[in-house]
């Protein structure tokens, strides 16, 4: 078992006919992910790449194909609606790649998700990969935009707010022969779906995961909240890395959520919280995998 998605998870793509969605739907198909449906309103009845049926609505796609997870590739002005359409259709997991969704939309979505069964990953995230057993980890489940080939099936969980920094960690692991159970990019926006803590809890309970790399960055207090929980509950080694130690306060560092405001959300505070909770913190981003592997 991995977390969130398994190699046999049936996946649908919202926005499959847009250039971005189409490109990554094709990459997921090539990776061996079971992409069973696409959704683009008005294009129901067509096929993607001559094989994947396209539906007008998520509800139809779920009913006809049994898809349980979705990846969303639609522009910011339509993304909130797309997420809620996935929630209403009863999907177990919705991954929203879209960058640039207004915070007010995400506040409403968080409110709508409360108490429901659907898990949201993102937005503004690379998505989720559970690597497969094939060459270049093919045969796995890839929802989003992460490069599949850098992965290798194994026992390390990765959770991160950043895309390329996740790939960096994954690649370090793979190059050192350590595979991954599941890699989760939770996204760089200030209001988003699953938090570091929620993903850590899933990894903690997953027998296939033996250790976790948790990558955070400046802004907010999610890393501190995760650290407080880990102190009491961690059953496996967790290594942290926090990006942005040199970021100036008050400036948004690329990600909408990466900002030190009112003296809150500094890398120093997060690193201190992690260390206090007994979580080893990688000195540099170049040694994330090494720091964890030494502890296994």
């Amino acid at each position: 078992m991995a977390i969130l998605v398994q190699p046999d998870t049936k996946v649908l793509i919202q926005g499959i006919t847009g250039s971005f969605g189409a490109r990554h739907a094709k990459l997921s198909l090539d990776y061996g992910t079971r992409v069973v449906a696409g959704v683009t309103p008005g294009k129901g009845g067509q096929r993607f790449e001559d094989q994947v049926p396209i539906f007008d609505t998520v509800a139809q796609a779920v009913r006809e194909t049994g898809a349980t997870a979705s990846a969303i590739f639609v522009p910011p002005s339509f993304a909130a609606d797309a997420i809620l359409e996935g929630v209403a259709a009863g999907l177990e997991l919705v991954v929203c790649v879209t960058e640039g969704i207004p915070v007010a939309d995400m506040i409403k979505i968080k409110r709508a998700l409360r108490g429901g069964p659907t898990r949201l990953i993102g937005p503004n995230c690379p998505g989720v990969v559970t690597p497969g057993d094939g060459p270049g980890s093919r045969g796995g489940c890839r929802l989003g935009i992460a490069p599949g080939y850098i992965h290798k099936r194994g026992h390390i969980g990765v959770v991160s707010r950043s895309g390329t920094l996740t790939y960096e960690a994954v690649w370090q692991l793979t190059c050192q022969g350590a595979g991954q159970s599941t890699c989760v990019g939770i996204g760089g926006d200030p209001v988003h779906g699953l938090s570091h803590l929620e993903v850590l809890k899933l990894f903690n309970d997953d027998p296939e995961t033996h250790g976790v790399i948790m990558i955070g960055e400046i802004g907010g207090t999610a890393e501190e909240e995760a650290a407080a929980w880990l102190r009491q509950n961690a059953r496996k080694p967790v290594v942290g890395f926090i990006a942005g130690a040199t970021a100036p306060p008050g400036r948004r560092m690329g990600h909408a959520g990466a900002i030190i405001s009112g003296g809150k959300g500094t890398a120093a505070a997060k690193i201190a919280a992690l260390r206090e909770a007994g979580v080893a913190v990688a000195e540099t981003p170049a040694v994330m995998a090494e720091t964890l592997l030494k502890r296994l």
Partner: protein
Amino acid sequence: MNIHEFQAKQLLARAGVVVPNGKVASTPPEARAAARELFDGGAQRVVVKAQIHAGGRGKGTFTNGLAGGVKVCSSLDEACARAEAMLGQVLVTRQTGPGGRLVSKVLIEAAWPIQLEFYLAVLLDRSTSLPLLMASTEGGVEIEEVAAHTPEKIFKVAVDPALGLMPYQARDLAVALGLRGDLIAAAARLFQGVYRCWWEADAALVEINPLGLVTALDGKARLMVIDAKVSLEDNGLFRHEDLQNLRDLAEESPIETEASHHDLNYIKLEGNIACLVNGAGLAMATMDIIKHYGGNPANFLDVGGGATKEQVTAAFKIILKDPNVRAILVNIFGGIMDCDVIAQGIVAAVKETDLTLPLVVRLEGNNVEAGNLTLAASGLTIIRGRSMAEAAQQVVAAVAA
């Protein structure tokens, strides 16, 4: 996106919040007309406020020696003299940096005797993902100071986005601030208006500091928005064409604005090692590792996930506009993006800019072999870092040499 105080007050007025009578002026004659109108309307005093995107204006100093970017004046002539002395001058405050900001507009408003100063703000509470109304009896000072020393004087109300700020919540807050009688209802209306302003404008922050309890002309106590700051959330701007027009490019760094035209995210820092990276997290981490090995990053630069050859060239040109730069570190993890495209972009950029500074390149990921061949075949002097750590050490050494 930050906007000026006078624009913030216009947004608040649009949401039904009563703001002081006043006008913005760009020239001394406009300032005279605005002040005259206020005095003619019965104002005893007016305040002249320099309009720049920075706090600390009242305690700031103009480079011509004049002290204070906020001045209360009791006569028309005094107000005109103050406005004339501020317009066209550079104001330095603790938030502007030593370069200061050019004052091209002043706001002229009616001023009243202030009995009490409160603090009021609406912002996102990231830990709950809910809007938060925050108020304090300690207005007119920085809220961070209050939070650090007397946190019990800060009152918070979480807002359900489906309901908005309910009247009872607003009244609770008014009472917590010590308001009584008619002022409770007045404060509640004001709080609801301020919340509506935040929500409807897709604002990141609406801050009223101070919110004054003033003595109005009729002798009664009234709540008044003395100073207001609004920052708009960049992701929400696409649905507010009217708010997009509030951008004042004179307040933004020209080099950062130019970068944004190429879809590059550039932030200038104080060091001398420029970096060019794909992805915000990796870009921050690259700055950090430069620092770790004893160097100082000159900038944050994220070329995005799908950078093109043209973008890489534009990125080099932007980096080189910073005269402090002594070396460049390119750190690319090409997940989906083709490393060879990046390599071609680097080669083209080096040739086009006649680069003479040391250049360290670390490429990893998709089609990296072809990218390496492109760099090797270019005949250019490029230091190749085999890992992020090695590349960072190489660039720090290059600057030290």
